[in-house]
């Protein structure tokens, strides 16, 4: 039985071009079923990740604020 | 200790100077730069100034003549010595004298009527006193 790959994208401390571009990079190599966990400190990330989900039609499993970072968990479902 | 060759230092300085000249030359050959600078320097506003330059120069020359400078200084000193009440009266006098915004030439009858208005004549009085004080 194969488990879908889970990858952590550490985008903490980055503000330009921003955590979304780190996500895009990981997205390039990801396959449907993979789970990406993104860490960011840029406060704009919360609204940006929601916008990305809306455009790409992937699944946002969780979006939470931890003490020192924002964590987003994305399940890849929309890759062609 | 290394010996500092004076000739070498001199040639280095000369070379440095040459490089600076090269750079200035580069700047002067830059069409885009020159276009931008001339656009900045010559605008509608600056063109007006350039056009009126002879009059502006004349005005500056008049203002800076010794006797005019002295008069301006006198007025400034006077204003400083006036008490607040007097200044307020002066201000009101000028306001009352203010002719219509549209600068339409007033008819003679209108001028006579304006002159006889109480506020205006009060104001005129103040101005006359002021001028007397200046002794011009």
């Amino acid at each position, binding site marked *: 039985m194969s488990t879908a790959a889970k990858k952590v994208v550490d985008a903490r401390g980055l503000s330009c*071009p921003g955590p979304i571009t780190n996500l*895009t990079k990981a997205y390039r190599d990801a396959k449907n079923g993979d789970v990406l966990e993104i860490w960011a400190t840029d406060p704009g990330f919360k609204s940006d990740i929601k916008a990305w989900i809306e*455009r790409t039609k992937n699944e946002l499993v969780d979006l939470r604020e931890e003490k020192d970072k924002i964590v987003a968990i994305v399940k890849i479902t929309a890759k062609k | 200790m290394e010996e500092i060759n004076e000739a070498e230092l001199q040639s280095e300085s000369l070379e440095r100077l040459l490089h600076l000249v090269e750079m200035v030359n580069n700047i002067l050959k830059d069409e*885009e730069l020159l276009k931008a600078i001339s656009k900045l320097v010559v605008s509608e506003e600056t063109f007006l100034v350039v056009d009126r330059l002879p009059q502006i120069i004349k005005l500056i020359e008049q203002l800076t003549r010794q006797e005019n400078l002295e008069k301006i200084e006198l007025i400034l000193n006077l204003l400083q010595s006036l008490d607040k009440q007097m200044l307020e009266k002066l201000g009101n006098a000028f306001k009352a004298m203010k002719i219509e915004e549209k600068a339409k030439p007033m008819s003679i009858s209108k001028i006579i009527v304006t002159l006889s208005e109480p506020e205006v004549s009060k104001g005129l009085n103040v101005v006359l006193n002021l001028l007397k004080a200046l002794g011009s």
Partner: protein
Amino acid sequence: MAEKKKFLIVGGGAGGAILANSLIKDFNVTIVNDTPNHYYWPQLLQIAFRNDYSNLYRPLSSLLAKGVNLIVDKVKKVDLQERTVTLSNNKLMNYDYIAIAPGVTIEHKGIEGNDKLVEQYGDFHSTPQNASKVFNVVTNMKKGTFLIAVGDPYHRCPPSPYEGILLADEVFRLRGVRNDINMVLAVPYPRAYPAETFNEVLEPILKERGINVMTFFTADKIDIENKKITSLEGEELSYDAAIVIPVHKGPKIEIKPEDAINQDGFINADKFTNQILKYDDAFAIGDASTSANAKTGVTAHLQAKVVSKRVLGFDARNTGRTNCPTELGFEEGTFVISDYNHPAAKVPANAINFIMKRLFADAYWDIIRHPEFWDPIFDVYFENTQPEVLWKLFR
């Protein structure tokens, strides 16, 4: 008197040349460059949209201070453990200190169809020949969709896609064909410019000039036959002429140990000190290094200064300062000014900024050649234009 230590510099671009000229008093400096020439890469934009080749390159030897040893050759391998560098003919050189600054490798094959696309329409991130192809396009195109799409968000010069589309817009307007051309800029970001603050300056300008911005679009596949570009995010854009900003990878140099480079070939360097891993005698600066997000000449310049101070015992550190001149066409410009602790200030667009960009470009060769003269001038400039100062000025 003690013999000077050997400092070896790989790459004679902005970072390498300024570093060499800054170290010459205290070190025995050797610089290795793969060609005899030093290129001012921002000129590619001027070639692409103005057919202006002046200021493109000069012989590297004319830019190096007396006493710097120049070797024109390719570096095949760097061994940080053994402290050796292998040249193309397998000649081995050793060093006391090394700075690796060979820049990026442009990989058109990184996006399917990009190598064919660049043959047709060119681009302004690779070679002067490809840039001249762009000029051909903008001076001949009469109607249709003109598209600039970012294929790699970590490309050289963050403002360049915006400069490209706005300068193209200028050319089309001057030619009187602008109304028949649909201009599109496709970017991978959630907004036109990734940094939200600077986007507030740039987005209105793009809108005013009628540029259609497509966000969340990372160019992934180019269908040459049908003239369509598909994005990673699953969308499609048609074009009549298109320029894709290509994939950028690290230098084609074998570096040992392997963990000194990341999966894209860039050298893992500390973001404050430029030091490579635990090697306190090895640095990576400029585009080839991971020590800054912005791949610009200013970054390389500032990093070179930090390295030159660190090797003399000073605790100089990168501030992450950017100072990217952004041309907007019609003799106007702005700057992207930020650092590690401050987002980009909202520098307004005006003619003075454009003039400053051009003055800098014209002074570039002198700046490379005489850091001892320009250092104090830049110190004053950078001090007085710190992002925190600018934030107070331009709210």
